[in-house]
């Protein structure tokens, strides 16, 4: 009896084999993981995929669920905005960083190599944002209900390509036609890429939302500002200036009536700098103490510029947790430009008790003298130099931010604000021979800065150098300086020098091939189609 029962049981067990082979076809069980084929199940999914393209510029990744977007030794360190800021600011007179991390010193002194981790991360992350956008554009291109989202993704792709064209010149080129896998994208030349970005932006201009339709999503004005910035730098990218086009698009933004300068310059760098409270903001990367957080973006700018002694984040910005990283500060050359020490102090030494340059009439001065104005060595502690506290985690009136977090700022990182439209137009007009028009735009900016007409200039006082300097005064620490210096030929030349440029105390001329960053060594080995930029 038992024997038979056992035999039956054994053979029944054997029969189960066939059914079990099917088990091999598994689907993810995690509700946080969605199969590509299931994106249509809920309309919010496509919003979330679009949200990812935006977020990929400003935060490191998916948080606790999926970690950073790229594998690097530190997620926050190598997020797009943070790496971009380092490449655009540390390489210039506006900032020098005290930290000993690999790659920092090379940026301070313009001695980077293709293995620099910051330029590698930025290159990879810009490419990744483009790949995310390509995927979204491919998924939505035939869906009539997705036209506007599709255009936003194309805007974000064009924006990433614009930073590529500016920093690396000749990136790998992919569009929604390329798939995902293991292939070797082709390299595009700088001038060809210029044409591509231009045509993309022009074709989506009419598809994007009305200005301010849903801040901080990209709208028509954002595309116009990006076109203006592209034309502003057209000569650098293609050899042919396009000032008229620059003027055309800045006109569209300025004349639209949708934006006005914030009465308080600081509003642009405070927790309430979003479009809801700030009429000047055109496009920015969201930061929020609760919802969109990280040691990136404005939190990074604020904390890396704070220290325990001179600019305490607790006192200046209301941030109390994990504060005062004591890295970034400005050089004496930039101080002279912003404070205009010669006219402010009449050639006399700055009084030791006026550490915050209170005698300066320019309200844009958010500088503080530290232990000494001079920075004694390229890697000297952040206690030396001129501290910067322009960005803050408080509201513009000093009150606490709405979604306050003691570790993370809620201050959005401005990409395009109206002041830029004025100064771009001023530069275009100046180059088109209309000095009076240029002066009018510059004075618009300076009247806000001085609170009256005391800072106004005349067309006789207007020079090319003044335009560059005014951009420095207006946009310092906003990740624009390197682009401006390159356009004016002063990034590597021997005339404009600052402490530790080229690795010397008073600064020295560097090689002009440094106007473009090298393609990362990792990319050159990974993709046989990519040729290194000349000089590297």
């Amino acid at each position, binding site marked *: 009896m038992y*024997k038979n029962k*056992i*035999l039956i049981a*054994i053979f029944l*067990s054997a029969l189960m*084999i066939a059914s079990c*082979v099917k*088990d*091999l*076809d598994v689907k*993810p*069980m*995690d509700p*946080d*993981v*969605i199969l*590509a084929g299931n994106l249509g199940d809920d309309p919010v999914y496509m919003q*979330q*995929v679009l*949200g*990812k393209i935006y*977020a990929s510029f400003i935060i490191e*990744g*998916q*948080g606790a*669920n*999926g970690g950073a977007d790229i*594998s690097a*030794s530190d997620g926050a360190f190598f997020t797009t905005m943070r790496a971009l800021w380092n490449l655009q600011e540390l390489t210039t007179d506006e900032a020098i960083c005290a930290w*000993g991390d*690999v*790659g920092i010193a090379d940026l301070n002194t313009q001695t980077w*190599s293709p293995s620099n981790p910051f330029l590698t991360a930025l290159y990879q992350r810009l490419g*990744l944002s483009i790949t995310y956008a390509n995927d979204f554009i491919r998924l939505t291109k035939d869906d009539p209900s997705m036209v506007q989202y599709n255009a936003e993704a194309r805007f974000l792709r064009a924006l990433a390509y614009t930073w590529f064209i500016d920093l690396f010149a000749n990136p*790998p080129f992919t569009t929604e036609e*390329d798939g*995902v*896998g*293991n292939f*070797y*994208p082709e390299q595009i030349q700088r001038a060809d890429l210029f044409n591509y970005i231009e045509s993309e932006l022009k074709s989506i201009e009419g598809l994007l939302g009305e200005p301010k339709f*849903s801040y901080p*999503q990209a709208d028509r004005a954002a595309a116009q500002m990006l076109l203006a910035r592209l034309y502003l730098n057209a000569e650098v990218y293609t050899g042919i200036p396009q000032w008229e086009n620059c003027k055309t698009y800045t006109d569209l933004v300025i004349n639209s009536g949708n934006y006005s300068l914030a009465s308080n310059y600081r509003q642009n760098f405070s927790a309430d700098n979003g479009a809801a409270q700030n009429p000047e903001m055109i496009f920015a990367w969201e930061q*929020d103490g*609760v919802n*969109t957080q*990280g040691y990136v973006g404005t939190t990074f700018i604020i904390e890396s510029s704070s*220290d*325990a002694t001179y600019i305490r984040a607790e006192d200046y910005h209301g941030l109390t*947790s994990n504060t005062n990283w*004591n890295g970034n500060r400005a050089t004496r050359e930039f101080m002279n430009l912003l404070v205009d020490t010669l006219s402010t102090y009449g050639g006399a030494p700055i009084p030791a008790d006026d550490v915050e340059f209170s005698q300066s009439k320019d309200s844009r001065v958010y500088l503080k003298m530290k232990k000494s104005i001079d920075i004694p060595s390229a890697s000297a502690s*952040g206690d030396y130099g001129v501290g910067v506290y322009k960005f803050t985690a408080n509201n513009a009136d000093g009150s606490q931010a709405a979604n306050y*977090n003691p*570790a993370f700022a809620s201050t959005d990182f401005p990409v395009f604000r109206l002041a830029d439209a004025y100064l771009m137009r001023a530069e275009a007009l100046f180059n088109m021979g209309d000095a009076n028009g240029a002066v009018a735009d510059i004075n618009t900016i300076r009247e806000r800065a001085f609170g009256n007409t005391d800072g106004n200039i005349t067309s006789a006082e207007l020079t090319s150098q003044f335009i560059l300097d005014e951009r420095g005064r207006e946009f310092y620490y906003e990740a624009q300086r390197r682009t401006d210096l390159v356009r004016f030929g002063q990034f590597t030349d021997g005339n404009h020098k600052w402490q530790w440029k080229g690795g010397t105390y008073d600064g020295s001329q560097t090689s002009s091939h440094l106007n473009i960053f090298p393609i990362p060594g*990792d*990319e050159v*080995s*990974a*993709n046989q189609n*990519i040729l290194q930029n000349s000089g590297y």
Partner: protein
Amino acid sequence: MRIIRKKLKVFLFLVAILASTAGYAQLKTVTGKITDASSGESLPGATIAVMGTTLGTITNLDGEFSLDIPTDAKTLQFAFVGMKSKEVEIGSQTTFNITLEEDLIGLDEVVVIGYGSVKKSDATGAVIAISSDDFNKGAITSAQDLLVGKGAGVVITSAGGAPGSGSTIRIRGGSSLNASNDPLIIIDGIPIDNNDVSGSSNFLSFVNPNDIESFNILKDASATAIYGSRASNGVIIINTKKGKAGSPMKINFDMNTSVATAIEFIDVYSGDELRKIALDNKDLYGADSYNMLWGENTNWQEEIFQTAISQDNNLSVAGSYKALPYRVSIGYTDQAGIMKNTDMQRLTGSLSLNPTLLDGDLKVNLNAKGMITDNNFGDTGALGSAITMDPTKPIYDDSQTGSAGYFQWNNYGANLGTPNPVEQLMDADNKSKVKRIVGNIQLNYRIPFLPELRANLNMATDFSSGEGHNNRPVTSPSNLTAPYWGRLSNYSSENKNDLFDFYFNYVKDLEQINSVIDATAGYSWQHFQREGDSWTRGYTDEDHPYQETKSSYITENYLVSFFGRLNYTLADKYLFTATVRQDGSSRFAGDNQWGLFPSAAFAWKIKEESFLKDVDAVSSLKLRLGWGVTGQQDIGNDYPAQATYISSSEGSYYPIGGQYIPTLRPSAYDPNIKWEETTTENIGIDFGFFNERVSGSFDVYKRVTDDLLNTVTVPTGSNFSNTLLTNVGSLENKGAEFSLNLIPISKKDMSLEIGLNLTYNENKITKLLLNDDPDYIGILYGSAFTGTNQVTRVGYPAYSFFLNQQVYDNNGNPIEGLYTDISGDGGVVAGDNSDKYIYHNPVADVLIGLSARFNYKNFDVSASTRTSIGNYVYNQVAAGTSYDQMYQIGYWKNFPQYLSDTQFVKRQFTSDYFVSNASFFKLDNFSIGYTYADIKGKMIPRLSFTVQNVLTITNYEGIDPEVQGGMDNNFYPRPRTFMVGIGFTY
């Protein structure tokens, strides 16, 4: 597969019914004497058992016995330690004068192989069997540590000295770079998932080392290939102790108490020395710096260590109840760490029942093991803090507010400087509770109408759960709790694995052609499911409530396999083995889902040939040749071939349509990802001389892994990350192994056994990229803070050190920042990858294990040693030291005195100065025991004394030259442990 669990219940019920069918009968008395066949001496204490019952006795001092047995009893079994046991038909006989012959040591030993077992003399693969006699002694809480230094080709490195911590096992070097290099471990027929639950520090902790009977280690592919896709790194089969049919109840109780201490501390500067450095370097640190030092001379390392006293108690009861052999055990370990506030308590229990039913046709093997462990992990970061904390500061400073009475640097100092190590360690509330239960039932049934055919069924389930928390008070420095003030952090996870194996085994003795056929064919199904979640919350501000971050995961995979093996033995001289396994893994898609893994082996028992048969000096000689292919699918991701999107957690949202919503990120994936395949060739010789008093084996092997999974940087724009795990590379391991067992003394009162094993392995990467770029620098390892210092490059061993070549002055001192410009490009040399070179690697070239066991009457002494030659270590503790880091804006740091040697002002992470040859000799343990063997009494007490980690001889300057992975970064130091044990056997 819920159906399997139901079936399990049915089978258990059947077993219970069948077990109760044994009956009683009339008795008769048998008597006799047992003697040694060679000497003729009587054998006191030999056992006599009636087969198939619980009846039995032992001989008296004169070797005589008397026993009442049922009249229908069929067979008597006579046994004595070191002798071959004998089974005798009873018939009508009542007097049994039996002579027992000395057992040829080892030859009849059975080694367990995949889905079966063979006599060691018939094994065709490279297999090591290690039984409990050979295990390392001492306060051992993890099963792996029993084996350290015991097997050629088996390298076990403990993660450190933390209570209950695990070890990594490498068999013949690693066959993967990114996938797992752990061997497949099979315990009582259950392949164990190496992915442990969170909160557990050792995936084998559910096995009480005291319950282990033997380890069988399968090294070459001809032995392992029957496990197919999980066998590339070897297979370790662990069998636990079982009750024996017919043996009387035996109770064993062991109590061990051990005392552990730290062996040495890192030499750091004292308070006085730091004050002197401050005075001497005022130029560097600035005028105010000296005033920031206080007057203490705190030895922070002493403050965080303690003398740890631990207990380990084990009770087991084994025997046979009627026809039901059983063993039950319970163990309790209370282990304290040598760092304060670290400890572990573990309770283990095991039950095994292995009756033979239906006149021997059905063998049942039922096992259950359970474990509950409480871990207290403390904060091992305090180790590093104790080295760098300013020694001029006191532990406590009542004048401070908000620091719970401890001295702490102000907010800034602790953020970028050093938190108070005592607070860091003592105020950590970092505990976990791990539970696991593993059970299986194996049925082995001889088919009644075809007695050569046996059917085997094995059903198992393995459930584990871990939960824990890692909390800190609000008075802790914020760098320990960032981004919060104070921290509450909880996690939990659960693993559920199920197994179903079924196979037939057919053995036929074909006498007419002088052959034996042993064929096996079967099917295996396994399901692994892992899930867990965690949350962390903390105060963000007094005016604001808690903030919280949460995450969770759930994932699963299946393995479905068909396998077969054919053993063919001709004339008991020529042995052929062929195996094949067809494995399906749910991790891969389409055509890559199934893989075929074959193997073949041949063994020639040369001793059985006529020209050797009569050579007495040679007791065994066998040549083995093996070839096989194995796979690897444990790649850390269950869905690597599918296009998926992953949602972001709170805090990583973005506003779309005016609402903050989670984002969905496409995950990088490779639709064509597949198994790694390792092909192994092995040639080996097993030999024995002088009645196996000298025995051993010698193997040479080559293992080539193709389709090696490597995380490569992908061309920008081609995938959803900057890197992708894909099948691009290959690597090879070549090596030789030698093992030798010597028995110089083997007398009744005295014996000496010496075991020696020697391992040589050479690892080389042969391909790493899709396109063979000869300039490819390799896979670089390092951090943003230290730069790159290791590389995996074609032509070199994996994880080679990759550094700048230090230039020295005439006195042999390193010149700071000066390195050879290897590329010749000029410019910055320090840290530039093009100026670095490959300088040794962390893996030893040669490992030698030597152990000895000596018995004299009631005394026994054993010792085991290891020698490692050619392992290099990067001393990260030394590399982080520089004068400029000692003082920064108001806070001081301390450093190890290595700084006095280098005199570096700035840190030089990329100097090869910090890599040194860490070859070592270690006396791992030394044990002495006394067994009070009064055979008349029932109680047999045993006393033992063991020292672990007795002695290390090395030139390496750091604390311990044995560093997992070769980067010495302050791991939990291995203690020296003294243990006193007392045991009773009843």
